[in-house]
């Protein structure tokens, strides 16, 4: 009975021009170009909305302020703990930036749209976590002068050497952060779940980043900066690769 | 007092053992209760399936 369906379909389609495009070669983006496509998209989105970067900066600066009120106006203590406050402010604010980065994809199921464009999940992950890193980096660069003003930190070794701990630290946050944000956005109580999942595993990254930053700021008598930077580097290598591999499984239906 | 030996300290030892035992027994009871809840739930879904 079913072959009747095929005959009629066959006879009807004879009248139609045979489809020439079925075998059309469809060019596909390599991993790198797809990643840059995602980065460009996220930057354009942020440029249009600008909600995310403003909210994150405002929240982080406010957090720095709150630290000084909580600790009290004792310059010595504030200056000594400045790297700790800086990184805590970045880490706390990162939850907003990571969450917003995924909210945009959850709206209208845009992430599913990206998947259906045959994009490699690794490219989506790399693109989004690089953008998260760059946003957190921008935030850090805003917070440094603020913490100089608030806590009187003096940058002896200049901004240059400060760049590596900041970059490695923000990369360490966004590597697992991007993946956890993709999970949290689809779960209940996502604003609670993201920090609950992210902060415990970030602790080694936080330790290393604070230590590296303070060594850069207050001098490194014992030459420990190399080992702390290496630890941060190891943390990044492990999580950029691991989360890149696991991201596909996280976003599949 | 022999050099450095911490006097007594038995109350801490008992405290640690008490914590250990309460945790183990407590979790046993928790599992026992969860087991009952899970079985009841299964039976409930089994019934509304058949009815």
């Amino acid at each position, binding site marked *: 009975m079913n072959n009747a369906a095929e005959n009629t379909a066959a006879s009807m389609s004879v009248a139609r021009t045979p489809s020439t495009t079925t075998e059309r070669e469809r060019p596909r983006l390599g991993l790198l170009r797809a990643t840059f496509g995602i980065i460009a998209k996220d930057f354009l989105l942020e440029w249009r909305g600008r909600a995310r970067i403003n909210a994150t900066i405002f929240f982080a600066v406010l957090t720095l302020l709150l630290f000084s009120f909580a600790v009290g106006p004792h310059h010595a203590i504030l200056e000594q703990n400045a790297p700790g406050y800086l990184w805590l402010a970045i880490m706390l604010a990162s939850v907003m930036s990571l969450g917003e980065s995924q909210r945009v994809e959850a709206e209208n199921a845009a992430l599913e749209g990206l998947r259906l464009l045959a994009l490699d999940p690794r490219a989506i992950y790399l693109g989004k976590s690089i953008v998260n890193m760059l946003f957190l980096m921008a935030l850090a660069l805003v917070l440094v002068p603020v913490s100089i003003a608030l806590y009187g930190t003096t940058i002896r070794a200049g901004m240059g050497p400060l760049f590596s701990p900041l970059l490695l630290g923000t990369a360490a946050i966004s590597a697992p952060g991007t993946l956890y944000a993709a999970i949290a956005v689809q779960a209940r109580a996502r604003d*609670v779940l993201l920090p609950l999942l992210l902060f415990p595993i970030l602790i080694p990254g936080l330790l290393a980043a604070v230590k590296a930053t303070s060594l850069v700021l207050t001098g490194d008598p014992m030459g420990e900066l190399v080992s702390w930077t290496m630890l941060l580097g190891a943390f990044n290598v492990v999580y950029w690769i691991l989360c890149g591999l696991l991201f596909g499984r996280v976003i599949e239906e | 007092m022999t050099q450095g030996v911490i006097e007594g300290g038995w109350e801490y030892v008992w405290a640690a053992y008490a914590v250990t035992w309460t945790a183990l027994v407590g979790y046993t009871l928790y599992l026992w209760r969860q087991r009952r809840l899970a079985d009841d739930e299964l039976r409930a879904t089994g019934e509304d399936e058949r009815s």
Partner: protein
Amino acid sequence: MRRVLDFGLPAMAFGLLIIGGVVGLAIAPPERDMGDVYRIIYVHVPAALGALIAYTTTLVASLVYLFKSSWAADAIAESSAEVGVVLNGMLLITGSIWGRPTWGVWWTWDPRLTTAAIMFFAFVGYLALRRFVDAPEKRATWASVVAIIVYVDIPIVWFSVRWWNSLHQLQSSPNTIPDPMMKLALRLNAFALLFFFLWFTRQRYRIARTRQRVELMEPPALAPAMGGTP
């Protein structure tokens, strides 16, 4: 076999715990420096072993689920994670109780204890994730992903905390003279908690499987209403 396990495991667990307790508290001699307070390690160290075994089981079960999508593996992962968190909690409390007489503070930043604390919160996050996600397939996949990410963090946490803390205090661990009775007490309690881990995980596994049967159903039989497919 089932009956042996159902009664054998708890019997061994409680039995060994009692014997280990007696040996540890009464028979083993006091330690040279720390007097009797060191006896806390007879429950502290075995709990640490149990927690690590539990978390390793969760890792393996999570990897099995990711590759084979087997619901049994997911149930094992969930069960041993929960047992791991319980043992981890015991470990932290007994560690803190031990810190009080020894160093005069309730919480020492001793690398092992600090790593245990971080792992405790990491796996509490894992359990929270399981509670906040309803779709069975998504919950199992995401939990496996989180378990792998958390487990891989353990060595990193260990090194970072050791470096971070190495300046403040020497690493103080009881330099127990290898007194046979001390070793016996430690071994007895270690096996006791191992049996507790096996028994708890087995019970929790059954609960997880029952809940799975509630949540997941096998495909319905080929209903007669099906049209004539070629």
